[in-house]
């Protein structure tokens, strides 16, 4: 194309660009779809949709241009701090050897039995202790009550009722 033709072409484009109405953006282009377009793996329909968006959205066009510029140069290595910090995001899972796990399992089983036995013994001792205390306390209370009743009877036997005696025998004043 000659220079003159190209200038005319440029004029036509500028006129069109100045007068064309912009199209609303539409939904965001998903990273997977844009990546497919950039790698030449998007289907024709997706290509059309993305290019229509690029023609109206300077940010998307800039993203594509930037990506192509990045492709033109070899990727320089990142500063070491970037990798060090990034690696710290994932911590190693604790790897326990199988033999240790099996041994721990056996010990754990034994420990469970021991714990169960301990619970039974403690419960038994506790029950005996609590029950014994209760029995002794009850026995003591009963003994005390019995003793009190006995004491009262003995008191009644040993101490004559003076008032009754007085009425039966007559008072000394009455005799005199």
């Amino acid at each position: 194309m000659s220079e003159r033709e190209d200038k005319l072409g440029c004029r036509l484009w500028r006129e069109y660009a100045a007068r064309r109405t912009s199209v609303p953006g539409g939904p965001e282009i998903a990273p997977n779809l844009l990546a497919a377009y950039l790698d030449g793996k998007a289907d024709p329909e997706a290509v059309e949709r993305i290019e229509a968006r690029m023609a109206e959205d300077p940010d998307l066009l800039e993203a594509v241009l930037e990506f192509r510029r990045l492709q033109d140069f070899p990727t320089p290595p990142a500063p070491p701090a970037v990798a060090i910090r990034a690696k710290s995001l994932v911590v190693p899972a604790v790897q326990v050897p199988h033999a240790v796990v099996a041994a721990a399992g056996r010990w754990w089983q034994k420990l469970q039995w021991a714990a169960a036995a301990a619970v039974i013994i403690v419960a038994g001792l506790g029950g005996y202790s609590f029950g014994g205390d209760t029995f002794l306390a009850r026995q003591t209370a009963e003994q005390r009550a019995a003793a009190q009743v006995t004491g009262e009877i003995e008191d009644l036997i040993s101490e004559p009722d003076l008032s009754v005696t007085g009425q039966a025998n007559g008072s000394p004043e009455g005799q005199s």
Partner: protein
Amino acid sequence: MDDVLENCLRGRKWAWDAFVDRYAGVIFAAVGRVLGRGRDRTEEAEDVAQDVFVRLVRNDFALLRRYDPDRSSITTWLTIVSRSVAIDHLRRRRLQAVSLDDAPPTTAPPEPQTPSTPTAEHPMELLTARQKLVLQLIYDRDMDPEAVGRVLGISAQTVRSTKHKALQRLREYYEKEGPP
């Protein structure tokens, strides 16, 4: 999906370390491209690159799991994701700058832009999206057909033919409507 990526998603530390070694450069370069150059920018780019890695591993590698190996290479996908995170970062930085400064009083919304010649709205189908893009890249960005072809993933010959058809359509349109 390659072995490293697969084991990464299983939470294997060695795989994650290998992933970082392999792609830290790609992520850092994509972020740096958005933020620009300079000593301060390098530190900022390191932080934003870390943010990209955080987003990749967060919620049991939820973002990394979205990568589809059948549709693109991991490098391309990571570049897009990194760029997106860097743009988010710039937006947040601008918002913070606005909130720290005295916000200017709210002004009336701008007048809707009207075309210079109100009657001359173009039919949308006059040019295809690709034709518009080709002319835009050639005339607005001063790119040659080879460079345009690299951007759009097509041959330089296809670019030339697309340009030719586009200009022909414009010429025919303006001949009917009157010269521009």
